[in-house]
């Protein structure tokens, strides 16, 4: 099983998905992320997919769900680095990921969190 490392930096959880995951691995990642976020009470969670070539409807659904789940935990969920080919594929399939907050790069997502989102006391 591939385990995606989840890093904690300045009240933010950061994970980069760089290899293609099986459905089970995606679900394991989802639950690890939620557990860690629950424990650390972060401002936000950023997932970077800038090296991922395929996001299919399953993965897209997990990302969509994560947005709601992380929100329920009181944090903000951000997605960064969606490749051009991936974005056009998702839209053609009808998976708009409308409720997911996205950024072009991890850098921008992190900037947004540090400047626009207030830290919880």
């Amino acid at each position: 099983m591939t385990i995606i490392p989840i890093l904690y930096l300045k009240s933010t959880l950061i994970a980069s998905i760089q290899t293609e995951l099986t459905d089970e691995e995606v679900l394991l990642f989802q639950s690890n992320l939620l557990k860690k976020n629950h424990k650390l009470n972060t401002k936000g969670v950023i997932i970077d997919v800038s090296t991922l070539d395929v996001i299919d409807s399953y993965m897209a659904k997990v990302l969509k769900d994560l947005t709601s789940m992380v929100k329920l935990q009181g944090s903000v969920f951000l997605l960064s680095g969606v490749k051009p080919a991936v974005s056009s594929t998702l839209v053609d399939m009808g998976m708009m990921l409308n409720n997911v907050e996205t950024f072009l790069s991890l850098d921008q997502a992190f900037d947004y969190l540090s400047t626009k989102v207030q830290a919880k006391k």
Partner: protein
Amino acid sequence: MMNGMSPEVSEHVPICSTKDIVTARQKGRELAHCFKFSKGEQTRFATAISELTRNILTYADTGSCQFYVYTDKNYHTIMAKIIDHGPGIENPKLAMTDGYSSGNGLGLGLPGAKRLVHELSIKSEPGLTQIEITIRQKKY
């Protein structure tokens, strides 16, 4: 088959677990890459394979994904044939309708996949479902 031509490349990926979905879509992407399809086409083809092979696991447990590459004077054509021996698609026309789903998926499967490739054809009866997707590109 393509007008009785024999394929330049043929590969076969059995689909039994979600790991095989990843293997099949990687193989599809690799072939598209080898024959110089654009990055966008590679991703779209791989994503379509991912959707269709996942259907196998949802509806039929096991099946296979076969790849054939044909090259003629003008075109490279890659075909992925996704085969299972499940209950079959009762109404293929209905199954191609946006938003329709009989499983617990997202209802994007077939119509979603169709929009990602140049051609998608379905042959289905109880015990044998065969879906062919094709991408084609002019030779340079």
